[in-house]
């Protein structure tokens, strides 16, 4: 059915086109009429009435065109003659493609040829004049027009090329004269891409690069590293193989960092120096003595920290857990400077020496520094700690199991049977109140200090019933009498489906320690002793 509809619609369109064509033809608008016949023929190829219509109107339009061309030619309007003829040729060729040949008046061809002779000669001379006057844009238009009419006319191709490329070539020269070498390069590159053999453009591109390279190197000598890096970078981007450019570009980029890093190393800012050297190695590989100096900076920037964990009365095992969690966390950062030291045997001795008195025991600190090279002590003090594994509480509850009963008259009634089910409740908890301090081993200065608290809890509440759980309703007690509690049915169903699993107190403790040790480790890692 759809196919039939489509066929009918196409047929209808063709008829409408033909009808319109007749109207245009009657109005003397032969070109429009011919256009419509062409469309109709495209939809219904070979249709006799449309083909004859096209032949008739096309010929009439062609005759009109011939008259217009002749008139223009006689007025010496050669431009109109040429474009009129070309348009007429295009029209005839379109009509021919539909299988209709029109009778051609060949006198117009002679007119066209003569008009071309005069018009192209005039335009060619004008184009040359415009080129002489350096009006390249206008010249390009003129030669493009000639090229579109007769591509092989005299030296049109070359002139067209000149009018297109010469402005770019000259623009490049102007940039070069103003010492804007890279802009010059870009303009000449455009010329080169269109015609690599245009004048000396290839050589000029090289010269622009040479000059920019020289400029960059001079700035390098003058130690204007930013300017040098910009200039050499541009050359490097375009010509990575340009002799020495990579080395000099790297020098321009990294020499100021190298110098600053060396100075930092000298003044004890070893960590900053280390990062500087590292960035140079990343960028330029082995630049000067960077690798050696980086090692030196790393060695100098070492920050050995002794972790002293205070007592946690009655929970020594948990205190050890905390220490382990903190140490793991600190090590996970792979900080190149931080080294962790633990003194399990002397922990309490040192801890008391450093923390218990109002001012740290300098002797003990010195002992840590001299004996172990410790630069700072991370002291962990616990204030309050609670870990509680709750007991599973069990409650026997009264409920009703409801059963539907179908009566003989078709109605449904319910039979509520009183039953017992069990409800369970359990709660686990871990909480810690603590503080940490990072104390300089050199002078007892407190470098970092913070009080932290944390709390983790988990609980479970569920119910079990051996019978049909879906029919189980809670009961409500009024005056020692139980009745079905329809309102809380869903609450009970939720309890019946609840998970009976619960995080243990140890798991809660581990999570808590993880959170707190993460905060402490982050603070220690971010601490820069050089600031």
């Amino acid at each position, binding site marked *: 059915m759809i196919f039939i509809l489509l066929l009918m619609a196409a047929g209808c369109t063709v008829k409408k086109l033909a009808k319109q064509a007749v109207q245009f033809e009657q109005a003397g608008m032969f070109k429009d009429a011919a256009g419509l016949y062409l469309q109709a023929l495209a939809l219904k190829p070979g249709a006799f009435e449309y083909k004859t219509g096209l032949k008739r109107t096309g010929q009439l339009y062609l005759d009109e065109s011939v008259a217009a061309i002749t008139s223009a030619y006689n007025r010496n309007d050669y431009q109109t003659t040429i474009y009129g003829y070309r348009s007429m040729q295009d029209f005839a060729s379109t009509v021919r493609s539909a299988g209709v040949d029109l009778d051609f008046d060949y006198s117009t061809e002679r007119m066209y040829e003569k008009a071309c002779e005069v018009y192209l000669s005039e335009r060619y001379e004008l184009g040359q004049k415009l080129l002489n006057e350096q009006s390249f844009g206008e010249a390009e238009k003129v030669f493009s027009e000639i090229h579109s009419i007769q591509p092989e006319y005299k030296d049109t191709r070359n002139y067209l090329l000149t009018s297109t490329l010469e402005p770019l070539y000259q623009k490049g020269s102007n940039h070069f004269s103003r010492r804007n070498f890279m802009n010059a390069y870009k303009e000449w590159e455009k010329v080169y891409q269109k015609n690599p053999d245009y004048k000396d453009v290839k050589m000029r591109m090289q010269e622009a690069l040479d000059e920019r390279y020289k400029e960059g190197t*001079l700035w*390098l000598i003058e130690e204007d590293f930013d300017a040098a890096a910009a200039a050499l970078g541009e050359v490097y981007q375009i010509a990575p193989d340009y002799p020495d450019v990579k080395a000099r570009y790297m020098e321009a980029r990294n020499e100021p960092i190298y110098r600053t890093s060396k100075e930092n190393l000298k003044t004890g800012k070893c960590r900053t120096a280390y990062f500087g050297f590292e960035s140079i190695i990343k960028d330029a590989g082995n630049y000067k003595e960077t690798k050696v100096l980086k090692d030196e900076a790393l060695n100098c920037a070492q920050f050995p920290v002794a972790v002293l964990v205070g007592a946690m009365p009655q929970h020594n095992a948990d205190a050890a857990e905390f220490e382990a969690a903190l140490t793991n966390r600190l090590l996970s950062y792979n900080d190149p400077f931080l080294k962790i030291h633990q003194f399990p045997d002397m922990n309490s001795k040192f801890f008391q020496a450093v923390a218990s008195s109002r001012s740290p025991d300098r002797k003990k600190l010195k002992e840590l520094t001299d004996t172990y090279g410790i630069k700072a002590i991370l002291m962990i003090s616990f204030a309050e700690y609670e870990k509680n594994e709750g007991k599973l509480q069990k409650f026997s509850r009264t409920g009703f199991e409801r059963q539907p009963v179908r009566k003989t008259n078709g109605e449904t009634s319910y039979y509520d049977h009183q039953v017992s089910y069990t409800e369970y409740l359990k709660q686990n908890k871990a909480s810690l109140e603590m503080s940490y301090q990072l104390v300089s081993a050199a002078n007892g200065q407190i470098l970092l200090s913070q009080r932290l608290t944390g709390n983790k809890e988990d609980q479970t509440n569920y119910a079990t019933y051996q019978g049909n759980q879906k029919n189980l309703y809670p009961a409500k007690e009024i005056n020692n009498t139980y009745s079905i509690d329809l309102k809380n049915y869903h609450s009970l169903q939720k309890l019946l489906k609840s998970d009976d699993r619960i995080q243990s107190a140890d798991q809660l403790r581990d999570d808590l320690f993880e959170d707190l040790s993460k905060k402490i480790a982050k603070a220690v890692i971010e601490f820069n002793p050089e600031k």
Partner: protein
Amino acid sequence: MKFYTSVILVLSLIYSCSPGRKVQENNLISEAPSWVRQTPNAADSYHGVGMALKSNQQDYRERARQSALSELAASISVTVSASSVLHQFEFDNNYSEFFRDQIKMSTRQQLEGFELVENWENEEQYWVYYRLSKTKWEQIRQERINRALTQSQAALEQARSFSEQGKKADAIRFYIQSLEAVRNFLGDELTIATETGNKSYAPALMADFINEIRDLKFVFPFETLRFKQGALQNTTTLDVKVTDQKGNPAAGIPVITKFSWMPASEQVSFTNANGVFSINIDKFKSGSSNGQISSAPDLQWLVENNSEDMLIHKLIDGIKVNTFILPVEFIPAVFHLSLTEKNLGKMVSNTGLEDEIQKLFLQEGFKLTTAIDDADYLLEADIDTFTGNERNNRFSTNLNATFVIKNKHHTIVYSRSVENLPGLGDSYASAGLNAYRSLLSTYRITVYPDILRTLF
């Protein structure tokens, strides 16, 4: 449901595709006379039938009349005789068509001798029928030819008289008037009676006119004009005399002059009372060693200023005038180079600069000499380098250069300085030489084009 929708669609398509109502045939002119339905074709006359609709038109009678007369005029054929001027001067078919159109247009404008045969009207239309007897028309036409010939001959007499007196511009003006007088009959074989019998008129007139134009002779002051390139700093004037073949000066003649090195440019000038016109030659640069100045009478100007008749313009357009050529020889400028090249204050050679300068001059067609007296221009260059900075055994220098060009009279005609061109090297000396490389580029890209722009 789907079925009904489809049926409605098909029906609506059938309806939309059906042809419109047929317009009922108009029987409005069924009772009209026969000349309304078909224009008469009796051979003894030219006929014209015109119609105008009455609706909303006050001037329908006049419109119908014009339409009828147009048809009548169109039926009068225009022929181009084999012995006419158009054939004799080998105008092409296109021109003949143009000529026919022009004649038809003037025939319609000057139509006379016709008679109103009849008119007929109904509620909507007004019809009119005119007729012109062929015999009568031939008579009218012959009278017109005679009048035109008389008028043309009078103008021709005048033209010849002015020509005898050497007043060429006036002579040409009257030749054009003479042609204008017979313009409607240029396709006919126009004859005049002479002592030796009948003689073809228009071709003779045309030949006379062409001879008058071609009689003009241009006398340049030189056989060849020689220019030293770059020597022309201001406009130079060249006086050219225009005479007839007897040597009498031709005054008031418009002249068009073209220069081979300046395409699409032309100068228009007029000869003075002594038959002299001036050509102004501006400073120029030519890419070749030879050129030419060509001058010719500006026939187009003469025609356009003496006739508004398109037919006459077209007729004279086809006449080729003599062009007079003055060969021009461009003598290349000769340069002498004097370079003082120093590096850190010490004289150096083989920097490549001299070779570069020479190469560029020779490429442009200039000549070089080692003898100062033979040179048109002396290029003096003074170059030296100065120490810059040093770092990590890298040395830099700066180069300063001045380029001065003097003419034969030792007057400075060009001067330019180049400063602080950088050089790099592993010593100051090598850096100095390296700076010369930048100078070479700068000279070629910046200085040399500037020299050409300034001097040539």
